[in-house]
């Protein structure tokens, strides 16, 4: 017990160090790099939500790209409308639309767009979760279903070009709340907002994990039947955690878009969805800090490697994933814990 507490305290310390590094990063890095970091922070927020559902509750969702995408599109619709200055957004006129579709109209309001960025993924997760978990669809069957969800949405968004921008997605934003997006002070503000949201997300997830609900989620992962026969309804808990992780993915999408400047169906497909799983696996599932480290570390490597050797990345990430699955079941964080644990016990032995 005290050991576990010490572990949690160390986790918090590591998180604080990461945050500190992120806060100080703009002093040392170019605007371009800081912008990249901002994108990774958005990914880290998503990864924590994914870790809650996969690492803690044991439900492997291979369709989180959809929730991320829906959040991103909600925000992008607002940015697109602000860039259009009351006229029809460019891609709509190219596709032959005469007037703004009804569901686009409320997105002129930034608060509404932000709300939708979180609400739409949550509601979708609720329906999907309700139908699957209620019918006790589990394990690999749920994973396949979640992947199908991803395909459905990509096809839908590509097909409805007039409303979604099709394959190209939504891009060419100009301002956010009137501030120019190309301005470096706007960029920096967005970056620090991302860090703030990262901290809030970590605090929220940490709260849940520490409370009894966290242990119930782990119990569902390890023995759903026993949970059920302890009088809990696992369905409710699963739907809850699915909705929460979808909401966090939506939030991540919403802060991704203004910093990256584009969202397209490619970001919500199966490949990015699986990449998200890989971040958590490499970082270390079942620990929040693992998800954060995984998302930032893997994406840092990705941009580093693909800048110098564009073709190598896919092979590299595939290989890394295999190595992690085979030799580091608890990811980087698990490996570090093991090494530290071994060192401590060796030290204790040499002392005695």
């Amino acid at each position: 017990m005290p050991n576990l507490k010490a572990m949690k305290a160390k986790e918090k310390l590591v998180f604080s160090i990461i945050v500190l590094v992120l806060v100080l990063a703009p002093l040392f890095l170019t605007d371009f790099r800081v912008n990249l970091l901002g994108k990774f922070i958005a990914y880290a927020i998503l990864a924590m939500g994914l870790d809650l559902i996969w690492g803690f509750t044991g439900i492997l969702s291979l369709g989180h790209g959809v929730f991320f995408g829906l959040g991103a599109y909600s925000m992008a619709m607002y940015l697109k409308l602000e860039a259009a200055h009351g006229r029809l957004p460019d891609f709509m006129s190219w596709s032959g639309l005469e007037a703004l579709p009804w569901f686009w109209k409320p997105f002129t309001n930034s608060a509404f767009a932000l709300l939708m960025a979180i609400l739409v993924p949550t509601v979708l997760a609720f329906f999907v979760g309700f139908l699957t978990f209620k019918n006790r669809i589990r394990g690999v069957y749920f994973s396949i279903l979640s992947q199908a969800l991803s395909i459905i949405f990509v096809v839908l968004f590509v097909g409805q070009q007039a409303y979604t921008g099709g394959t190209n997605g939504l891009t060419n934003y100009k301002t956010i709340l009137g501030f120019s997006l190309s301005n470096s002070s706007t960029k920096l503000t967005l970056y620090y907002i991302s860090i703030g949201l990262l901290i809030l997300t970590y605090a929220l997830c940490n709260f849940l994990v520490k409370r009894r609900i966290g242990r119930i989620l782990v119990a569902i992962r390890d023995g759903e039947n026993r949970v059920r026969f302890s009088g809990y309804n696992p369905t409710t808990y699963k739907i809850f955690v699915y909705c929460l992780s979808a909401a966090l993915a939506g939030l991540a999408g919403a802060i991704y878009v203004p910093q990256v400047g584009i969202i397209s169906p490619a970001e919500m497909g199966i490949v990015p969805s699986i990449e998200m799983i890989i971040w958590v696996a490499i970082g270390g599932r079942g620990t929040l800090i693992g998800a954060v480290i995984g998302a930032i570390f893997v994406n840092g490597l990705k941009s580093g490697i693909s800048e110098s050797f564009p073709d190598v990345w896919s092979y590299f990430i595939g290989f890394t994933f295999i190595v992690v699955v085979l030799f580091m079941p608890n990811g980087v964080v698990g490996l570090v814990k093991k090494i530290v644990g071994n060192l401590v016990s060796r030290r204790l032995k040499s002392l005695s």
Partner: protein
Amino acid sequence: MDSILQNLTVSFDGFKAVNNVNTGIKQGEIRFFIGPNGAGKTTLLDAICGRVKPQSGQVVFSGNVDVTKYSEHEIVNLGIGRKFQVPSVFTNMTVYENMELAVVKDRSIFSAMFHKLKKEQVERIEDILVTIGLYEKRFNTPLALSHGEKQWLEIGMLLAQEPKLMLLDEPVAGMGRSETDKTGELLTKIAQNCTIIVVEHDMEFVRDYASKVTVLHEGAILDEGSVYDVQNNQKVIDVYLGRSGEADA
């Protein structure tokens, strides 16, 4: 407060695993269900706790509640606890935390987020841990427990739920004699506040602790009565006890 099984039939694709079973279990009784493999003992427990839905019949509990209409977790909340044959406790948390999950009465998400355990719940956990002999090991994970201790922990978790009826599937399988006796004494103690149904093969255990025994054969009741009566029933000896009886002799 008796529990009554009325015309209970469970069928799997036409095969009647439990066939028209009628019996009443008195409050505070330790009722044993025995019978050869495939007699439908475990299926009977499954039907009572909601794991399988019976094709026909009722399980009447607490006077007038037909539990077959409810889902598993609702049945638990009505006061029926179930222990499975293989010990299933949560290995990624401590013994104490295992008990904590079981003792909570408000099992909503909100409560799981914001409510701490009440003082009497903490005391209850500690009492039970002393009863099942795991108080000293409360901060260990169940990985460090022996097979017998895991079974006791699971029984302890059931106790923490404060059930009125407890269903135990082969609780002493794989236990040594002294562990078996300890389990028997534990059951006797529990039966002061709770009715217990046990499925068991260990005849010595049945002899020592049963209030009443029901013998199942091919899904139907073959005989019911005291251990002595059942043991001297020729039909029971033929289909079930004959083999183990010879081994005993």
